[in-house]
């Protein structure tokens, strides 16, 4: 297990290294001069040259890459071209919106999907199963930003229960901030819940066909205990895989939802940075997200080992 973990972490680090090279190269070939961007079109040539020098833009590409990577390792992501503040500060500020949003959505989607999937599996082939899975089939097809528009119309325009968008900031108190995140979280969570419910159901069905389930039932164990204790634990592996994938998806997927609700999160930051050619911010956010995906994948693997003791010795 330890050897396996070390191998996983090593692969993760290599992935990060290659990813950083890819991100750097892609953004390197994009036309545009960051110094010109900071000073504006009418900048004095001397000032421009001085700034280019100060930003290290005159150095060879390889050196700038090494500088960028070694900076990130100690938490220095460089300075934004348009905000003139450190990228790490911008990210830290925006993570406080995106991370709670993604976590709320993940929690909601799990809280809906697990019971629904288990319920459906337990009633396989019955009317309730058909209906629930039909609804899930539709849910998978709903784009989250359209669902968000429907929610805005229903709860903000029509019922006037919540604001249609915007974020008051955590300084305005926990409840107003959470309230602003509820609708976006629901919009993100529901289509994801539909996917997760389908995965949970099929994983449960597979486990419910196993011999030890029949044995447990045959020795008189109540149906509910068999379902929740014996079956669920073993069905969790595919569910965990999807959960891991979904977290990364949710964190990046907030980009459209944040634009729908005008939330000042990572997604909006990176979207604005792209349109303003503030590439150093784009690079930083991309690397942060790739690192999150890599980390979550390792955590999911550790999760496998916790759920399934057989995996601790194998591999």
């Amino acid at each position: 297990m330890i050897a396996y973990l070390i191998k996983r972490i090593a692969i993760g680090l290599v992935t990060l290294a290659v990813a950083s090279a890819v991100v750097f190269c892609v953004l390197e070939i994009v036309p545009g001069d960051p110094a010109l961007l900071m000073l504006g079109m009418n900048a004095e040539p001397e000032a421009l040259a001085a700034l280019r020098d100060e930003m290290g833009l005159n150095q060879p590409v390889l050196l700038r890459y090494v500088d960028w990577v070694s900076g990130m390792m100690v938490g220095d992501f460089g300075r934004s071209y348009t905000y003139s503040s450190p990228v790490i500060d911008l990210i830290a500020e925006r993570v406080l919106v995106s991370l709670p949003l993604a976590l709320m959505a993940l929690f909601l989607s799990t809280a809906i999907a697990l019971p629904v999937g288990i319920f459906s599996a337990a009633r396989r082939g019955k009317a309730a199963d058909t209906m629930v899975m039909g609804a899930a089939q539709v849910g998978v097809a709903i784009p989250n930003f359209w669902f968000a528009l429907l929610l805005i119309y229903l709860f903000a325009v029509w019922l006037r229960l919540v604001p249609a968008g915007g974020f008051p900031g955590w300084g305005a108190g926990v409840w107003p901030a959470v309230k602003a995140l509820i609708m976006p979280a629901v919009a993100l969570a529901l289509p994801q819940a539909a996917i997760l419910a389908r995965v949970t159901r099929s994983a449960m069905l597979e486990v419910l066909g196993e011999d030890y389930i029949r044995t447990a039932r045959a020795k008189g164990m109540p149906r509910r205990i068999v379902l929740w204790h014996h079956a669920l634990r073993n069905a969790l592996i595919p569910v965990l895989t999807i959960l891991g994938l979904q977290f990364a998806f949710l964190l990046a997927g907030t980009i459209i939802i944040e634009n729908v609700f005008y939330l000042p999160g990572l997604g909006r930051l990176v979207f604005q940075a792209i349109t303003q050619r503030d590439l150093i911010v784009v690079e930083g956010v991309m690397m942060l997200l790739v690192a999150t995906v890599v980390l979550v994948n390792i955590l999911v693997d550790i999760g496998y080992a916790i759920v399934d003791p057989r995996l601790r010795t194998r591999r």
Partner: protein
Amino acid sequence: MSMDPTIPGAPPERGFLRLALANRSFLIGCAITLAVAGLALLSFFWTPYDITHLTVADRLKGLSTNHPLGTDHLGRDILSMIMIGARNSIAVAIVAVLIGMGIGVPLGAWAAARGGLVDEVLMRFNDLVFAFPALLSAIMITAIFGPGALNAIIAIGIFNVPVFARVARAGALSIWPREFILAARAAGKSRTLITIEHILPNITALLLVQGTIQFALGILAEAGLSYLGLGAQPPMPSWGRMLFEAQTRMIVAPHLALFPGLAIVVTVLGLNLLGDGLRDLLDPRLRRER
């Protein structure tokens, strides 16, 4: 579809139609997909109204017999816009799937055929692409290289590559140990020839099913990109952009946000049902595992 008769689970050709007609997912999915494709094709020859003709006097009209789905802020007929938008969505998603298949399947089949280092390197590369948040990367690609349908296709297509590579590899790996492959190898056929003659025909079913799934995901991705203004550019209508334009007019004309969204849901639902149905039909073993 040519199926090798030695593969257990391959449907007998004769019973296929009967099975297909009994499969509800397949039938409904097929009907929806054909209907959407039909509307898109029809839009090349006829739409209820000419959408390049703006009638501002008719703007933001609700549902009526003249305009069954109403009109937008420029007085354009929503039904006509949705029909032409279908064309855009389908084209982007299909070409993105073809890119993914065209590059991913040979790579996956190659990895399975060679094994060893080639396999290891290709699959690590695959994992690398998977580590990039697909939607965000697609947004980055379209935003940097310029918004438009072509860049949207490329951006979505790139992320289809590792998906098809993985499916093709897994499928091919399950075929390689079979006796008839051994026989082909004993007959002195090269790995490339075996892959083309025996492996690929036997993983067509898998690829077809994955194709419909990626097609559906492509439609969703295209809608997301064009909602952000990064997909097809005006005057070419797209479902995502229609939703974006509807958002600011939601108080006066909520129907604007309803129909393009429904078009996306129905299309994606149809493709997903078709995919599920195909999977059941083409490979009964997969059905049992569900």
